[in-house]
């Protein structure tokens, strides 16, 4: 139901009710007052006739043909005087009374005296008419004002809703892809919060789309490299002139395919972790257990590269988080460490509790990350130059994204002895329990 119709119905019904109530009250009050006045008149008239000697009927009150009638009885009960021949009131008791005569109600005042009984009467309708006309005098202007009110309501509501219509028109006019904020100048107070909320939503939407676009562009760009490699490797397979060349070319092709699928996998992980994606409910979990399972998972990979992967000092520590995501975080750190550590090196995972917060530590004996590059390594698709390691450039970006979602803090440092990389992830203090 439109605001306009709602307002119209409500206001006009209220107006009508007020009119009816006012005229009803007027009618009631006027009726009562008229009763008193008329009764008083009847009484006064009767009293004024008290001392008159009734002689001949027609000589008295010649003008009283219509409304008032006067009857006088003698003590014996015989009619002495009658002002209107057509109407004969029955003789009643002393005082006021209402009697029907000839289909009309008459108000009668009876004054009984020793020598005669005087009755003065007037039709009840006379006073009722007066009350009704008074009531109508109140009601009519109010009812007459209803169309005027309707028009006013229509115009005012229309005027008030105009900004909304303008906004609707502005939205209708814009290109479907436009996420520019709506103009909020000159808006009525009631509409401004809605528009500013709408603009806030548009802004957030624009940012989300921007991020998505950038990621897609980056991703497409990044996919070019593995695809270029694959195309070259396939051509080398085709061109192979000997069994050995073919074997080498196929080996490289396999590595290229592995690299491409790893990149795609990492991108999927990234998309799943996107802020707008729905993640599992966070729960309290034991980081020490999680670290042990990650180490077990990566043991074969480490062994294949002749790297010693093991748990170092492990204290029981709990963190609130999403198990799957934290597993990915620890897994990526361990995977990175194994990738960058030369054969014969070590990768050590440690868990401790610091001031009530859990801390995950991954240390390796690789070349480390130079201090100036430590901020950039968390950027998507950034790869450390000259490392010669095939990475997607997403591993640490994913780690950062998960850490941020858990309000955990990551620091990159150097191990004391080997000058390798030490990644420390500090989780916020978990509530007891």
């Amino acid at each position, binding site marked *: 139901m439109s605001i306009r119709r709602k307002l119209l119905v409500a206001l006009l019904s209220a107006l009508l009710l007020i009119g009816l109530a006012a005229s009803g009250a007027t009618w009631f009050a006027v009726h009562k007052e008229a009763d008193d006045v008329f009764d008083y008149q009847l009484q006064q008239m009767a009293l004024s006739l008290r001392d008159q000697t009734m002689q001949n009927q027609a000589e008295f009150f010649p003008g009283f043909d219509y409304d008032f009638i006067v009857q006088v009885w003698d003590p014996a009960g015989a009619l002495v005087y009658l002002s209107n021949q057509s109407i004969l009131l029955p003789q009643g008791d002393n005082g006021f009374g209402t009697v029907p005569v000839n289909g009309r109600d008459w108000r009668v005042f009876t004054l009984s005296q020793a020598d005669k009984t005087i009755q003065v009467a007037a039709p009840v309708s006379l006073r009722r008419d007066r009350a009704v006309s008074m009531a109508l005098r109140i009601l009519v202007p109010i009812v007459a004002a209803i169309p005027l009110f309707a028009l006013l309501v229509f115009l005012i509501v229309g005027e008030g809703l105009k900004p909304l219509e303008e906004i609707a028109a502005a939205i209708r006019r814009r290109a479907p892809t436009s996420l520019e904020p709506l103009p909020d100048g000159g808006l009525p107070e009631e509409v401004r919060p809605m528009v500013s909320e709408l603009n806030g939503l548009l802004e957030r939407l624009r940012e989300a789309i921007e991020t998505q676009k950038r990621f897609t562009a980056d991703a497409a760009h990044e996919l070019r490299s593995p695809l270029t490699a694959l195309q070259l490797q396939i051509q080398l397979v085709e061109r192979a002139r000997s069994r050995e060349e073919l074997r080498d070319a196929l080996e490289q092709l396999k590595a290229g395919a592995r690299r491409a699928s790893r990149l795609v996998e990492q991108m999927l992980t990234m998309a799943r972790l996107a802020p707008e994606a729905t993640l599992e409910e966070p729960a309290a979990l034991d980081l020490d257990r999680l670290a042990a399972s990650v180490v077990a998972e990566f043991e074969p990979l480490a062994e294949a590269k002749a790297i010693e992967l093991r748990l170092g000092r492990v204290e029981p520590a709990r963190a609130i988080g999403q198990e799957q995501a934290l597993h990915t975080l620890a897994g990526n750190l361990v995977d990175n460490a194994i990738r960058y550590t030369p054969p014969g090196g070590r990768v050590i995972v440690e868990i401790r509790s610091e001031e009530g917060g859990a801390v995950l530590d991954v240390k390796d004996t690789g070349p480390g990350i130079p201090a100036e590059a430590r901020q950039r390594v968390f950027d998507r698709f950034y790869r450390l130059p000259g490392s010669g390691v*095939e990475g997607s450039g997403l591993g640490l970006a994913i780690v950062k994204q998960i850490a941020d979602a858990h309000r955990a803090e990551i620091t990159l440092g150097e191990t004391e002895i080997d000058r390798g990389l030490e990644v420390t992830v500090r989780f916020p203090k978990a509530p007891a329990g």
Partner: protein
Amino acid sequence: MRLLLVEDDVMIGAGIRMGLRQEDFVVDWVQDGRAAELALAAEAYAAVLLDLGLPRKDGFAVLEGLRRRKNRVPVLIITARDAVADRVKGLNEGADDYLVKPFDLNELAARIRAVLRRQAGRAEPRVTFGRLTLDPAARRVTQAGREIPVSAREFALLEALLHRPGAALSRAQLEERIYGWGEEVASNSVEVHVHNLRKKLGDATIRTVRGVGYAIANDSDAPCQSAGNSS
């Protein structure tokens, strides 16, 4: 022909080098902008294959530095950046060609040859001098219409000498053009290749310039002496 490949992606670099070697190019491969500049300062390359997104020094910066030093080596940009603005910038900065990844190895080789041809100031795909014709794409040598089988090194040596016909090249310059880094070069290998080529094409084809090195000679007047060596 010796090429410098500047590519930071290990797999792509390895693939390109392998593919170009199969086309008998000599390829030196570096993985960042600084290393590229060092290599360019130290060696004379027939052409440079330059990636743009390079660590340590961007490809554009390498190219700009090269042209600022009046180095006229042909440069082919190989990149994933396909925006028209990048292509235009690359060509305006002095690149000779622009190839967007992913690309076909055959196309890469063809473009390299085209660039080398333009650099040598000719339009026709084959190099002809006297009765000798060299087809770089097919890697074929013909003398007076007859095909002469030559090895990859011999072909490279001939190609180097025919780059500016008649100009003499020293043994070191020839070595530099036909061997890449890390390739073992016997001390007399250039002499061996020249000897073999003379046997196949006739003594008069390659002239010894005393104190300098070797030069190609117009053999149209000399009698053909290759009859016995066609096997």
